[in-house]
């Protein structure tokens, strides 16, 4: 038996195993934990909240792709179900906690039931077939969501009010704390932050449990896992359901943050691609990769454009030809793309994998 060390229990014995990685993770954790105080203003806290949500979304996808070896394209569907669960409940009932609770539970049930059905029908056959099925189901769901105007608000989506306590007008204290007024927006941020933290640690526990090792065994050699007496279909189905449930909760958190849910913010295929990129950049099968992948990606998405604009202006002011045009703010997507190609090329095992290799 190992000593009862609280950090060991929290991280489930799965340490970063690289000093640079540990330091980076610690910085990210501190920045996220104190984001409202460190970076005042609505844009930074918006980015921080998005990072928290995507860490969970990407971690849940890593559970499938990185740990179990299942390729799914339906992850945004489960994310969307969470978003729409909150949206529909808030919009149609009332902006109360109980309505939200109903929305969350209904979304979780729907997600996990769908994941189970898709899994039982297609996980027993070849991996590519499962990927195709998820793609088809997710597309159908996205179309359904944009067509069912009455329920989902169609292409326009739904804007709604959330419980009083989480609205910007709400004040927890009369006086500012550390120079920041603790309003409903900041409370919402901490709801998201702590939910994300708990979910992440829970995922870390699952992948380091006896169950989690079976998932890895299935990823490595499903044939042999079956021969050892593990019912591969059952394990894959459970992993699929857990992952779907976690993605749903990420969708719930995003819906609470945005106070809006529409096809573009939840179900679009672009988000699916983003998730894939974040997993690959961070490092598959590490979970910590989800933290790094989501943080880097979302920071780049939000600040690369600004940085490039400033660089372009500076270059233009210095009178250098051509370069200002190349670094013009409108070209940010090009550079984002180049960054991804380079990162996948130089870190095929992801940033976390690379950092761990450097250490050993």
């Amino acid at each position, binding site marked *: 038996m190992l000593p009862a060390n609280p950090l060991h229990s929290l991280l489930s014995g799965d340490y970063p195993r690289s000093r640079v990685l540990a330091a980076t993770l610690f910085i990210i954790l501190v920045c996220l934990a104190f984001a409202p105080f460190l970076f005042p203003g609505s844009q930074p806290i918006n980015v921080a909240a998005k990072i928290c949500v995507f860490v969970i979304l990407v971690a849940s996808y890593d559970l499938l792709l990185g740990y179990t070896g299942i390729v799914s394209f339906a992850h945004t569907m489960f994310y969307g179900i969470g978003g729409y669960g909150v949206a529909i409940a808030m919009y149609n009932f009332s902006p109360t906690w109980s309505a939200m609770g109903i929305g969350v539970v209904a979304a979780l049930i729907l997600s996990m039931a769908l994941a189970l059905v898709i899994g039982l029908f297609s996980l027993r056959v070849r991996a590519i077939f499962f990927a195709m099925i998820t793609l088809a189901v997710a597309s159908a769901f996205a179309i359904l969501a944009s067509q069912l105007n009455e329920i989902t608000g169609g292409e326009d989506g739904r804007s709604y009010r959330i419980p009083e306590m989480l609205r910007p007008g709400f004040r927890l204290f009369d006086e500012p704390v550390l120079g920041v007024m603790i309003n409903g927006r900041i409370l919402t941020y901490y709801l998201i932050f702590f939910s994300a933290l708990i979910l992440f640690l829970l995922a870390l526990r699952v992948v380091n449990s006896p169950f989690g090792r079976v998932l890895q065994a299935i990823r490595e050699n499903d044939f042999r896992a079956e*021969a050892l*007496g593990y019912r591969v279909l059952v394990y894959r189905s459970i992993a699929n359901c857990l992952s779907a449930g976690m993605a749903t909760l990420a969708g719930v958190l995003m819906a609470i943050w945005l106070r809006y849910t529409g096809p573009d913010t939840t179900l679009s295929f672009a988000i699916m691609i983003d998730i894939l990129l974040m997993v690959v950049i961070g490092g598959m099968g590490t979970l910590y990769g989800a933290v790094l992948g989501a943080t880097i990606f979302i920071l780049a998405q939000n600040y690369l454009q600004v940085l490039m604009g400033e660089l372009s202006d500076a270059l233009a002011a210095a009178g250098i030809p051509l370069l200002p045009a190349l670094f013009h703010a409108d070209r940010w997507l090009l550079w984002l793309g180049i960054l991804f190609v380079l990162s996948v090329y130089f870190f095929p095992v992801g940033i976390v994998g690379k950092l761990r290799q450097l250490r050993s």
Partner: protein
Amino acid sequence: MPATPALETRELTIRFGGHVAVNAVSCAFHPGTLTAIVGPNGAGKTTYFNLISGQLKATSGQVLLHGQDVTGLTASARTKRGMGRAFQLTNLFPNLTVMENVRLAVQSRAGAGMQLLQLWSHRGDLIDKADSLLASVKLLDKRNAMAGALPHGDQRKLEVALLLALEPDVFMFDEPTAGMSVDEVPTVLELIHQIKARGDKTVLLVEHKMDVVRSLADRIIVLHNGTLVADGEPATVIASPIVQEAYLGISPEAAA
């Protein structure tokens, strides 16, 4: 001999298109015996094993384990009922450590795979068990190496450790010593000998090396083109013309 064999196949057959790979093989295997299955390459030995352990579905015929029909069960269900299989081509979890490989087998035996919130490292009992198995195949010093990075001979030993970890009633070894260096072979043969010496286990062994077969087997069955062509005491079977021709490639005239 006990009334119920540990394992029995009845008219077990599989066809791939027009080719009959295993043709109506009926055979019973009793506890405390070690049966060697021999035959030339392509005779259907491994296919016969795959049918017994459930990797392939039989076209017709039955597999009985402890007298119960298991023909319709999956490989994992058969393993749960006491069948254990080591594979001919090394079939491990390459990106997990040696220790994790064995531990997964131990864990399957202990039925602990469904624990989601317990720490993997907190099951000290399972780890100790895995370590003692690694010691028995002389791999303990490599417990933290990735299984995929092991030399071939060590992978074969790990394969055997995985089978031992399952503690089956019926052990199926598919050429356990193939590709091993000469000094590694005795370790594995000694383990097989120990299993046999316990008296309550049933061992099936596919093996090409005739000296190994002679030293371990109580009985030899010969497969040729998917058909059972000989069955009996090692000395008798090896001496029989059909084996001399089919297996050793010597024509009866030359042998005589």
